[in-house]
């Protein structure tokens, strides 16, 4: 759900799709998605504050807390951060996505052998 101003940059659907391809009940899926969302949001806040000069941290956090979905926050960051903020956020999200997909992959159980395979 688009609720945070950087959601359009993080393109996390691949991770959700991977979970959709797994046998999970609704509660399990929700729980995983919540953990994933919270991890991503922590890392995004971390990355943004890394790039943003400290003198603007309080202004950013105040606005962010008041309206986390407000696209004006991207504008604010573009003005105060040196470098392409969109690219930086996208790159960070890609890194997180890679890690999360790897964890999901490692947690997959091998598919049971079919009778056809056993007969070979």
């Amino acid at each position, binding site marked *: 759900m688009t609720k945070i101003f950087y959601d359009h940059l993080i393109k996390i659907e691949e991770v959700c799709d991977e979970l959709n391809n797994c046998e999970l009940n609704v509660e399990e899926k929700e729980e995983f998605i919540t953990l994933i969302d919270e991890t991503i949001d922590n890392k995004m806040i971390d990355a943004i504050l890394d790039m943003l000069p400290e003198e603007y941290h*309080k202004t950013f956090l105040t606005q962010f807390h008041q309206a986390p979905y407000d696209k004006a926050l991207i504008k604010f960051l573009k003005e105060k951060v040196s470098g392409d903020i969109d690219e930086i956020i996208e790159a960070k999200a890609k890194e997180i996505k890679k890690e999360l997909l790897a964890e999901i992959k490692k947690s997959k*159980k091998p*598919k049971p052998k079919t009778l056809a395979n056993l007969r070979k």
Partner: protein
Amino acid sequence: MTKQKNTLDTELLYQKLRLKYLHSEKQLEKKHPNAVLFFKNKQLPPGKIRQHAARLLTSGALASSLLLASPQIIALQQAQGNAAYETVGDLNQSLSSELAQILPKKIVPLTADQETQLSHLFYKTYGIDAVPQLGSTRLNHCYGLIGAEQHLPRYPGDTLDQHEEYLRAGITPGLGAWGYFAPSKNKLTEDLVNKEKYYVAVQTLYLSDWVSRFKYLRDWYKYRKVIVTNPVNGKTVICDVADSGPSWWTGKHFGGSPEVMAYLELNVHMQKGPVVLYFVDDPEDKVPLGPLEPKS
């Protein structure tokens, strides 16, 4: 054929994801303790910002939230301390007035501010989460001209006379961009009937990443739910994406099924008019297709 789903060691995955989450929390606290303190003073762990955003959006919804009780029918509810709209005419008129204050006089790309205001307005009016961008994709236009489309063949052998209404619009000689809605007549469910009835065409072909992300976007856009509002009269209908187009040289940005155009009162004269078209963020599929109207 249904794809076989993978089995997960859910306990293992939970532990791993939880570890990642805890690590991200620790890192944030270590590197930006003042930020964590800021959130602590607001009684909000930084990772919960998304839930906080959802609460803010919910509390921004106005008194008259609308319940979507059954296909095409919704109930207007009186909210605490505020008068509900007496009729759908009042609601539409009010929406039209508010849209006039936000939308530009000409059909031009909307600013980020206008887009946000529209999202808030839809939520305030209908209690629906409507956004110009959903996930990583957005259309080339969210405010543009909609033109009339024909009925779409719903199954092999479907003919115009099998459709209920607006037969004068005709039926397309070919299939919609996503093919038949059902493999045969007896597999045509009420849900699929509604998907053809309230379909729109959108210009997926002009998305900059349509080719590079074709596999993902083709599935993503199929029957994607959208809200379509005629700002002139405030009439609003929940539609689904079932075709691609129109071509840019038509001067139009969207296409509407005969039923959609009729409801929006755009199936007259030039059979086109301005609309706002936004994605409906409805992961639990609770918002039914069709016009947004009060119960009679």
